[in-house]
Structures are given as C-alpha cells and as structure tokens.
C-alpha cells in the first residue's frame, strides 16, 4: 500500500496545508486504508493534547504591559537627568570637557528653556515654534535668539553621557539589588550589591557614533563574558534619546545590528 508516502500529507492535512490535488490523493487513500485513517486520528488527538499544554496568561499581564507602555511614551520622551545630578561634579566636569565652549548654556538647559521661551513670547512668537524654527530663518544679530539655540539643542539632542545613563538604567535599574555607579572614562561601571555582598560587576561602554551619525553605540561588558555575549549585549540610542535599542531586540530578521546604523 506504500503508506509512508502519505504520512507527510497526513501531517500537512492537520495544518490545513494541502493543495487541492494533495487532498484528493490523500482522501482516496484514506477511503481504502484503515491504518492511515487510524494514524490521522491519532495525530489529530496528539495535536489536541499538545495544545492543551498551553496555560492561560495571568489576567493582569496585559494591564501590566500597558502600564509600562504608558510610562514609556513613544514621543517626546523627557530627558532624565536625575542620575547625572547624583553623580554631581564629576559628571558635570565631563560634560564640560565634551561639550567644550557651548557647554554652559547646555548645562543650564533646564533653567535656560523657560527663560528663552518668555523672551520669545514677549516678541509675540508662539512658544512651541521657537523650538522648531530653523537657524537660518531666525534674524541674525538678534540677541534674544541666542539662548534659543541652546534650548533647541538640549530639547532635541541627548549628550552621549545622557544616552549612557539610559543604557545603564536599561541593563541594571530593575535588578532588585542596590546599585552603585561610577564614571570611568567613556564607560560607566555598575556594581550590584546585596548588603555587603557584591552580586555583580559590569560596565557600559560608549563606543562612539554610528556610521550614519544618528545613534550613540554602547556595549555592556563584564569579566568572563563570552564572545557571543560580547556580540549580543550591544545597544544603540538615537541622538534624541527616544529609545534604547538592544541587539537582542534584533529587529528585522536577517539584519545585522551594525548594518542598521549605516546609511
């Protein structure tokens, strides 16, 4: 009877994946072969049992997901400066060095913003607009315009340090352990402790800008990390700080992580 050639068809029939021709072939065989009929029924029962292994997700799962989604809006993510404030003078000094002569207005960004806006409002310019007016459209030599440049920059672009903070939070904020952070050159060292016991030591390292100039790139390292892990634990943050993209979120299929950031 050559039943073996029908087993792939039986299996595909369970998945509704037969062509018209295959179905007719199989049906003709099943009419005259009790063994294959029995096989098909057994495999059907087996699939049914497998499906029953699934469990219902807890009812709260969806609402918890949506709570998190709600606290991570996709647009207008505000700059998070809290951690950097805690790092205090060390972080500030670093920003100064990195940002050079334009650093002062940037550091004062939070204070400068309302100031700049009120100056614009006095001139009758809508507040929202002065953040989007391109530089070349602003009147040259207008003293009131100058603070807006700083505002514009702080409003739209994160510094590498701010991006680093986001990645550090991403990899360690919810560990459940006490966390100590220390700036070390372009990296931030993370120590997790439970009382006096050191649970874990790792570092997030800033690698530089992506090829297309749109992302800050980072990697998360620890001692004894395997090559595979070194490759896997890499992160990208768009310049506006709107996301932390982990390689493991590995984005469209078959896309190499680096290739995503090349123009």
């Amino acid at each position: 009877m050559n039943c073996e050639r029908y087993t792939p068809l039986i299996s595909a029939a369970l998945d509704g994946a037969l062509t018209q021709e295959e179905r007719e072939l199989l049906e003709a065989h099943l009419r005259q072969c009790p063994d294959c009929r029995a096989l098909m029924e057994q495999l059907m029962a087996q699939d049914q049992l497998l499906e029953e292994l699934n469990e219902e997700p807890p009812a709260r799962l969806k609402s918890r997901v949506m709570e998190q989604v709600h606290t991570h809006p996709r647009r207008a993510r505000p700059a998070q400066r809290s951690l950097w404030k805690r790092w205090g003078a060390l972080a500030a000094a670093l920003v100064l060095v990195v940002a050079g002569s334009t650093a002062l207005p940037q550091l004062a960004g939070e204070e400068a913003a309302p100031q700049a806006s009120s100056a614009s409002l006095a001139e009758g310019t809508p507040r929202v607009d002065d953040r989007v007016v391109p530089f070349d459209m602003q009147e040259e030599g207008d003293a009131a315009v100058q603070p807006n440049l700083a505002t514009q920059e702080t409003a739209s672009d994160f510094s590498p340090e701010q991006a680093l903070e986001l990645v550090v939070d991403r990899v360690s904020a919810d560990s459940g352990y006490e966390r100590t952070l220390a700036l070390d050159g372009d990296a931030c060292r993370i120590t997790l402790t439970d009382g006096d016991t050191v649970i874990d030591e790792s570092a997030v390292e800033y690698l530089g800008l992506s090829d297309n100039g749109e992302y800050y790139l980072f990697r998360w390292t620890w001692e004894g990390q395997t090559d595979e892990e070194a490759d896997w634990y890499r992160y990208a943050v768009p310049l506006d700080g709107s996301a932390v993209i982990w390689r493991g979120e590995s984005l469209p299929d078959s896309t190499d992580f680096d290739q995503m950031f090349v123009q």
Partner: protein
Amino acid sequence: MTEQELLDRARRGDEDAFAQLVEDNQRRLYNLALRMTGRPEDAEEVVQEAFLNAWRGLDFFKGDSTFATWVYRLTSNAAIDHLRRARRMGEPLSLSGDEEDAATELPDPDPGPQEELERTERAAALRRALDTLSPPHRQVLEMRALDGLSYEEIAQLLDLTPGTVKSRLARARLALKKLLAEDGNFSAFLSSMETEQGKGGGGG
C-alpha cells in the same frame, strides 16, 4: 482593524492600538516564555519586557516579517537574556507580592479530582515525551501545535524553507507518537480518543 492598521496607529503613539496587539499575541508569548524559563513569574516578566521592547522598537519593525514572528523573537531573546542574567547574578530578590500571587495560582482543587489528576499526569507525561524529542523536532512541533504559528512564520523564525518545516513536522509528529505509544497510559488514551473520533465520523 488589520494588524497593519494597528501597527500604523501604534507607531503614532496610539496605546489602544498597541493594547490590541498585546491582546492578540500574549497567550502565545506567555507560553513560549513559560516553556523557556519554567516559572510563571519569570514568564510574566519576560513577556512584559518583550512587549516593552516591541513598543520602543516599533520604528525598527519594517514589516519584513509579521508582527507575530517579530514579538516571538523578542520574547525568545528576552527569555535568553533573563536566563543569562539569572545565571550571572544568582536569584534576583523576589518582588513584593510574588508569594501571594503564587498562592492564587494553585490549581483549583474543586472540579472532578480524579479527572483532573489524570489530566495533570497526562500533561506531565506529554512534556516528558516532548523533552525526549530531538531539539529540532521539539522546536517545530511546539511552534506549530502549541504556538499555532504557520509554516511560513516558523520558516522565517528558524531560517528554513516552508518545505523543510513541513517535512520536519511530519517526522516530529511520528516521533512523538512513537514515544507516547511506549507509555502505557498514553496509548490507551490515544486509542480511546481514536474510537470516539471514529464513531463521531472523524470530526475534529
């Protein structure tokens, strides 16, 4: 609303549209995470992480694959990450309320104790049999029979052709049947199912 419409809305920041995508995918992802981590509280955490990753990464999802396969991969990655971290850092401190949650998740002792017991034993035996399969066989069978993914989706996730998925599935089903046949309880159960289905005119 189609998946594409939901995605477009979610990309523009519409949380209700994203909630619908969560609704449509959460059962499959929760069970995937549960199989990988083995613990309901870990599975829940992993799925939350994966959905949050999806939300934050929506702009990177270009529609080369279906949303279902994309979040499936995110969940699998989040589970691997979770297991690696657990290995590196030991057991994280349990979040408050977990003990309470675990208590409420105990199986309901009320309905038909004998029947329930048989069901639980059968499930355990089935899991054992699944674990005995070769990993490639187990993988396609779980993705198809438990997760309900299509041949095309499985092919995409495992980087195979749909034809390979089809033939591998047939072999996996036969291999599992053979293992179950060696389990006394199971062969009796399966042949009783078979008789019932035979009487019912081969329905199902």
